[in-house]
C-alpha cells in the first residue's frame, strides 16, 4: 500500500468514527427525551401524593414535598374511619385480586389447551375455528355488554366477583389462544410424533412435553391477562356495583364522588395503589415478556 493510500484510509476512518460518535449521542438524547416524557407524570403523581393539601394549593406542581407525608396513602388504603360515604381501596383491592387470579389462570390454561389442539391435533375446519376465535380479539368491548349482561342475569351471577371471573375468562380466551397457537406452531410436529410412538396420549403429551417448554409464552400470557383484567373498568362498571366492584371502579367512585374539596394527594395515592400490581408483575417478569414475545422455535 502506498503512503498516500494509507493517508486516505486514515481520513476515512476518522470520518466514520466522528459520524458514529455523533449518531450515538443523538440516539441517547432521543432516548433520554422519551424516557423523561414517560416518567414525568409518574413523578408528578408521586410528589403530589406525599404533599399536604396546604402545600398543593400554594406550591408548584413540580417541587418536592417539604416532608414525606404518608397520610394520603393511609386514607386512600384504609379510609378516614367515619361511617357513611367513606370509600377506600382496601376491600376493592382484594375484590380485584380474587377476580384477577382465577380468571388469569383459567384463561391461560384454556388458551394453552386450544393452542395445542389447533396446532398439534389438526382436525377438519380447524382453521375456521381459529378464525372465529381471532374474531373475538377484534370485537369491541361495548358490543358484548348487553348480551353478556343478559347471560349473567340468566345464570344468576350478575353483580358478583364470580360473574366477572367468567366474563374475563371468556373474553381472554381468543387472546390466550392466539398466543399459544403461535408459539406451538413453531414447535416441530416430529416431537408429537415421537411421543405418540413412545406411547404418550393427548394429555400426556401436553403436560409432559409441551407445557414444560412453554414458560416464555405462559409468562407473556399471564402478564397480558393480568394487566387486561386488573385494569379493566368497563366490564367492572357494567356488571358490578357497590361492594362487589373491582378496584378500578372503586377508584373512579372515590375520585369522582367526593362532593367537597378535591383531595389531589389522596387521588394520586389511590391511582398509584390501583396501578401498583401490574407494575410489579411487569417489573418481575418483564424480561421474560420481551423474550417470550420475540422467541419462537424451540431448538433441540
Amino acid at each position: 500500500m502506498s503512503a498516500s493510500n494509507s493517508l486516505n484510509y486514515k481520513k476515512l476512518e476518522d470520518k466514520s468514527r466522528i459520524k458514529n460518535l455523533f449518531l450515538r449521542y443523538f440516539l441517547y438524547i432521543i432516548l433520554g427525551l422519551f424516557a423523561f416524557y414517560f416518567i414525568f407524570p409518574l413523578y408528578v403523581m408521586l410528589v403530589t401524593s406525599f404533599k399536604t393539601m396546604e402545600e398543593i394549593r400554594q406550591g408548584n406542581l413540580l417541587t418536592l414535598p417539604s416532608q414525606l407525608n404518608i397520610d394520603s396513602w393511609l386514607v386512600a388504603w384504609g379510609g378516614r374511619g367515619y361511617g357513611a360515604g367513606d370509600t377506600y381501596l382496601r376491600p376493592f383491592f382484594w375484590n380485584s385480586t380474587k377476580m384477577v387470579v382465577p380468571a388469569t389462570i383459567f384463561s391461560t390454561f384454556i388458551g394453552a389447551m386450544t393452542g395445542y389442539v389447533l396446532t398439534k391435533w389438526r382436525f377438519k375446519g380447524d382453521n375456521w375455528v381459529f378464525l372465529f376465535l381471532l374474531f373475538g380479539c377484534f370485537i369491541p368491548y361495548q358490543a358484548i355488554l348487553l348480551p353478556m349482561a343478559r347471560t349473567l342475569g340468566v345464570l344468576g351471577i350478575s353483580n358478583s366477583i364470580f360473574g366477572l371471573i367468567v366474563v374475563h375468562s371468556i373474553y381472554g380466551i381468543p387472546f390466550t389462544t392466539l398466543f399459544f397457537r403461535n408459539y406451538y406452531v413453531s414447535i416441530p410436529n416430529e416431537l408429537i410424533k415421537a411421543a405418540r410412538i413412545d406411547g404418550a396420549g393427548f394429555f400426556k403429551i401436553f403436560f409432559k412435553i409441551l407445557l414444560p417448554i412453554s414458560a416464555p409464552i405462559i409468562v407473556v400470557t399471564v402478564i397480558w391477562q393480568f394487566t387486561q383484567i386488573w385494569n379493566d373498568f368497563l366490564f367492572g362498571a357494567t356488571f358490578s356495583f357497590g361492594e362487589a366492584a373491582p378496584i378500578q371502579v372503586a377508584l373512579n367512585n372515590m375520585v369522582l364522588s367526593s362532593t367537597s374539596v378535591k383531595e389531589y394527594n389522596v387521588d394520586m395515592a389511590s391511582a398509584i395503589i390501583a396501578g401498583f400490581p401490574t407494575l410489579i408483575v411487569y417489573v418481575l417478569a418483564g424480561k421474560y415478556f420481551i423474550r417470550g414475545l420475540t422467541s419462537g422455535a424451540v431448538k433441540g
Partner: protein
Amino acid sequence: MVALQVKDLSKSFGNTRVLKKINLTIDEGSFIVLLGPSGCGKSTLLNIIAGLETIDEGNVFIDDYNVSKVEPKDRNIAMVFQSYALYPSMTVKENIIFGLKQARVSKKKIEEQLEKVASFLKVDELLNRKPSQLSGGQRQRTAMGRALVREPRIFLFDEPLSNLDAKLRVEMRHEIKKLYTSLKTTMVYVTHDQVEAMSLASKIAVMNEGIIQQLDAPQKIYDKPNSLFVADFIGSPSMNFIKGTITRDSNSIIFIPNGENEINFDLTHYEFIDKIEDNQRIVLGLRPEYVSNLEDNNKNMKKLSLKPVIIETTGFDKNVTFDFAGSEIIGRFTPNSGVELNKNHNVYLNLSQISLFNEKTEMRM
C-alpha cells in the same frame, strides 16, 4: 419371512394424490431405503407405516397382522426423525426411557436396557444433560438410543442425517450401517440422498410422484435403471442422455444421435436390441465413468473428438463437460489427462455399458 407388507396403499392430502396404489414387501432383516426427491411421498409412506398418518385406501401388515388401524405405540416399531425430536425439557436419560415408562416396564428392566443402549451408543457420559447441551451428533445418538431401547420389530428412519454437516453425516452413516450389521433388524430408511441410499441399503425403492419406480439392489439400480427418472436420480454426476434414432439394416443396428449426421454408434451387441424397431426414437444413457480419455481394447469403444466446455476437478479425477448432439455429456478423465478448455480432445465412449430408453414412455428397453 416377510416383516412388513404394504398393499394397494393410496393417500391424498386434499386434492393432491401423494401415494398411488403403493405395493411393497419387505423381508425380515433387510434394509430398505425409500429414495426420491422432495414431495415424492416417501415420508408420507413412512409415516403411514408408523401409524402417524391415516390411510385412505389399502392396508399395512406387520408380520401378517393388519395394523392399518393400530396405534403407533402398539405396532412394535421405533422411529428416528430428521429434527431428532428429542423432548427439550427432559435429560438424555429421560428421553431414552420415556417410551419404556409409558409402557410400564419394570424399573429394573428399564435400568438394564438403558445401560445396554447407552454404552452401545457411547452416550453414557451424557445421560444427565439436556438436549440443548448436546452437539448434533450426540443428539442423533440419543434419538437412536430412544429407538433402540424399545427393541422394536422394525426401525423407521426419516432422513435422520439431513441436519448434520457433511463430515458427521458420513460418520453417522457408518454407525447406522454398523448398527444394522450387528442387529440385523428390519429397517426402513427415508432419504433424498442417493449416496446414503446406495451405501446403506440392501434394497432401494426409488419413488417419484407417489409411485415406486424401481425396487432393486443398489448395484442393479445403478447399472440397469428401468426408467429415465431413476437413471437421472442415481449417480453423481448423473447419467448422460443422448437422444437419437435407431436404424436397422441386414446385419447391424446403428444409433444416430440427433443432429450428428457423421457420427453413429453400433449397438448390435445390446441385449434387448431385438425389441427395438427401425426408426425408433430412443434415449441412450451412458454413465460418466464410461466416457473417458483412456483407450481400452474393447470392441464396443467409440472414439470422438470433442471440445470441453467445463472442467471440474474432484482430486480423484476430472469431470469434463462437452457439448454433444444438442446437449451436454460429462466424462470422467484421469487427473493427468492434460485436457484443456475449448481444445479438442480424444474421448472414448465405452458402449458396452449403456442403457436404452424409449423416448416417449421414458422406460428402459
